[in-house]
C-alpha cells in the first residue's frame, strides 16, 4: 500500500514541492521579510548608516523583549484569546526581578523567579478564561487594572537602582552577539518548532480554529488554554527579565502602551485575531519590522510630528497587504 501510494504520487509530489515553495513565498512571513529587506535597501541607500552593523544591532537589541513577548501573545491569539494585561505584567515582573537583585538574592533566582511568577499569574488569568468561561479580553482588562494598581501601590514608583554587578543579563554578549538577540532568535525557533511538532502546539491551532472539533478529537479546550496562558506567562517573564536587565536602572512602572505594541506585532505578523492561524516567526519578524520602521523614520528625517502618522499608515499597509494575499489565495483555492 505504502509503496503503491508513493510511486503513484511521485509526479504529484514534485508538483507538491514546487507548490510548497510557492506557498512559502505567498505567506505573511515572506511579505514581512520582503518589506524588511525593502526597508533596509531603501533607507540604507538614503543613509548607509542605517544598515551599519551597529544600527542593526540596536534595532534588534532594543526590541528583542517585544519580540519575545509577542511570541507568547501570538500563541494566545492563535488559541482564539487575547491578553491586554501584558504591559502591566512585564512591569510587575521586571520589578520583582530588580527588587530581588537589590535585596541580594542569587542572580539566577532573580532571573528565574520572574519567569515562574509570570507563569503563575498568567495561569491564573488562563484559569478564569478556561474554566470560569469569561472572555479573555474582559479578564485581561481586569488583570490590567489589578496588576497596574498593585504595582504602584507596592513600589510607589521608586526606581530600582544600584543593581548588583553581573545582574545585567541583557548586556551580556556571548560570542559577540548581544544576549537578547540570541534569546529572541532561539526562542522564536524553539517556539516555532514546538508549535509545529508538539501535540500541544497543534492543539493550540485546533482550539483556535474549531473548538468543537478539537473537543471531539479528544483535545481539551480548557487544558489547552490553560497551557497557552501558562507558556505565554513564561515568555512574558523572559521578556520582563530582558526588559529589566537592559539598562542599569529599572523603572518600576508599566511601560506605556506596551500591550498595544505587542499585540500589533502579533497581528502584523499574520496571526489572525479570530484564532486558528499565524506563526511565531511572523510575529517576531513583525516586531523587528515595526522597530525598523520606527528607526528608519528617524534616519530619513521624517518630521517627528508626523512620525506616528507614517507609522500608522505603514501598519495599515502591512495589514492590507496580508488581507490582499489571503484573498488571492482563497481565490486560487476555489478556482
Amino acid at each position, binding site marked *: 500500500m505504502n509503496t503503491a501510494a508513493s510511486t503513484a504520487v511521485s509526479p504529484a509530489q514534485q508538483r507538491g514541492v514546487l507548490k510548497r515553495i510557492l506557498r512559502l513565498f505567498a505567506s505573511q512571513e515572506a511579505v514581512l521579510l520582503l518589506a524588511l529587506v525593502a526597508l533596509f535597501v531603501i533607507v540604507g541607500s538614503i543613509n548607509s548608516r542605517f544598515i551599519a552593523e551597529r544600527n542593526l544591532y540596536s534595532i534588534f537589541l532594543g526590541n528583542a523583549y517585544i519580540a519575545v513577548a509577542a511570541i507568547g501573545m501570538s500563541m494566545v491569539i492563535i488559541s482564539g484569546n487575547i491578553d491586554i494585561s501584558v504591559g502591566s505584567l512585564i512591569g510587575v515582573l521586571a520589578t520583582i526581578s530588580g527588587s530581588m537583585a537589590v535585596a541580594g538574592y542569587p542572580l539566577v533566582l532573580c532571573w528565574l523567579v520572574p519567569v515562574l511568577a509570570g507563569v503563575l499569574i498568567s495561569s491564573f488569568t488562563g484559569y478564569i478564561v478556561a474554566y470560569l*468561561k469569561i472572555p479573555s479580553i*474582559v479578564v485581561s482588562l481586569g488583570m490590567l487594572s*489589578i496588576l497596574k*494598581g498593585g504595582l504602584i501601590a507596592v513600589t510607589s514608583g521608586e526606581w530600582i537602582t544600584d543593581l548588583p554587578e553581573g545582574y545585567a543579563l541583557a548586556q551580556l554578549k556571548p560570542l559577540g552577539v548581544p544576549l537578547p538577540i540570541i534569546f529572541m532568535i532561539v526562542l522564536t525557533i524553539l517556539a516555532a518548532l514546538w508549535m509545529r511538532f508538539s501535540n500541544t502546539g497543534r492543539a493550540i491551532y485546533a482550539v483556535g480554529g474549531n473548538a468543537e472539533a478539537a473537543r471531539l478529537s479528544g483535545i481539551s479546550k480548557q487544558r489547552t488554554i490553560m497551557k497557552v496562558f501558562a507558556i505565554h506567562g513564561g515568555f512574558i517573564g523572559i521578556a520582563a527579565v530582558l526588559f529589566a536587565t537592559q539598562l542599569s536602572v529599572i523603572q518600576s512602572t508599566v511601560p506605556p502602551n506596551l500591550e*498595544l505594541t505587542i499585540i500589533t506585532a502579533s497581528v502584523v505578523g499574520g496571526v489572525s485575531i479570530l484564532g486558528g492561524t499565524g506563526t511565531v516567526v511572523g510575529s517576531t519578524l513583525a516586531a523587528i519590522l515595526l522597530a525598523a520602521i520606527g528607526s528608519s523614520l528617524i534616519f530619513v528625517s521624517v518630521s517627528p510630528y508626523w512620525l*506616528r*502618522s507614517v507609522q*500608522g499608515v505603514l501598519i*495599515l499597509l502591512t*495589514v492590507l497587504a496580508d488581507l490582499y494575499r489571503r484573498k488571492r489565495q482563497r481565490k486560487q483555492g476555489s478556482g
Partner: protein
Amino acid sequence: MSRVAPTVSRMPSVLSTARRLALSHEGVLLIILMVSLLVLATQTDRFLTTDNLLNQCRLMAEVGLVALPMTYIIITGGIDLSVGSILGLCAIVLGVAWKNYGLPLEFAIVLCLVTGAAAGAVNGYFITRVGVPPLIMTLATLALYRGFAEGVSQSRSVRGYPEWFYQFGQGELFGIPTQLWFLIAALLISAFVLSRTVFGRALYAIGHNETGARFSGLAVDRYKMLIYTFSGFMAGLASFVFVSRVSTTRSDMGTGLELDVIAAVVLGGTSIFGGTGTIIGTALGVVLIQLLKNGLALTGVKGDATIMVIGVVLICSILITNFARSRQATEKPGD
C-alpha cells in the same frame, strides 16, 4: 401594578419576573451599584451629595458619550479601539481650525464633528468594504489618528477660547452641568434606537449572525458603516465637550480612553462576542466605574487601589452573571 394583586397565580409570575430581573446582568449591576452606594455613603458624608453627584456626571460625560456607540459596535461583534485617538484628532482640528486658520469657532466645532464622523467612516469603510477585521483596523487607526493629531498640531496646544465656549464643558443649564444634558439626550436616543427601531434590531441580528442578517435583506454593510461613523461622531462630540471642560486643546487628549470605554461597556453586560447588550447596562457600567473611583477616593482609598478594585469588579460582575445564567439554564431546561 399598584393594585393589590388578588391572584395567587400571578404571584409567582411577579416573583419570577423580579428574579429574572435580578438575575439579568443589569440586575446584578444595579445590586452592586446599590450596595456600593450604600457602603460608600456610610463611609463619608461627602459622597452622597447633589453637588458631588452632579460633578461626577460632568466628569463621566466623555466616556459616557463614547460608550454609547461602542455598545452598538460591540453588539454587532466589532470593536473600536481608535476612539481615544479620534477624540484627540477632533480636539486638534477644533483648535487648529479656530486658532491657526482663523475660522469662526462655531464653524470649527462643526468641522470637529465632521472630522470625527469622517474618521469613523474611514474605519467603517475598511471594515465593511475591504474586510479588515475591526480590531485590526482600529488598532492601526489608533496609531494613525493620534499621529495626525500630532502632525496637524505640531504638538502645540491651543488655548484662550472665548468665554461662551466654556459654557458647554464648565457651565450649567437649569442647575445641571451642560454636558449632562448632552449625555442624557444621547443616552435616551441611543437606548430608544437600540430597543425600539429596525436599526437597533438589525444590530442584534448582525451580532448574532451576520450572514443570516445579510440573507434577510438587512443592509448589513450600511448599518456597520453607520455605527462606526456614529462612533467617530460621538468621539468628536466628546472632544468638543472635553476641550470646553479643560479649556485647552492638546494632541494627547483621550489617550487610553478606549480601554475605559470598553471596560464600561463590558461591565455593562454587552458581550464581546456580539448579539447581546443594552444601553441601560452600559449606562450602569459607566456610572458604577465613576462612582467607585469617586467614592473610594473620598473614603481615602488611593488611586492605585481604586484601579485594582475596578479590575476586580469587572471580572466578578461578569462571573456572577455567568454563574446566575448557568444556574438559570439548568433550572429551566428546554423552555
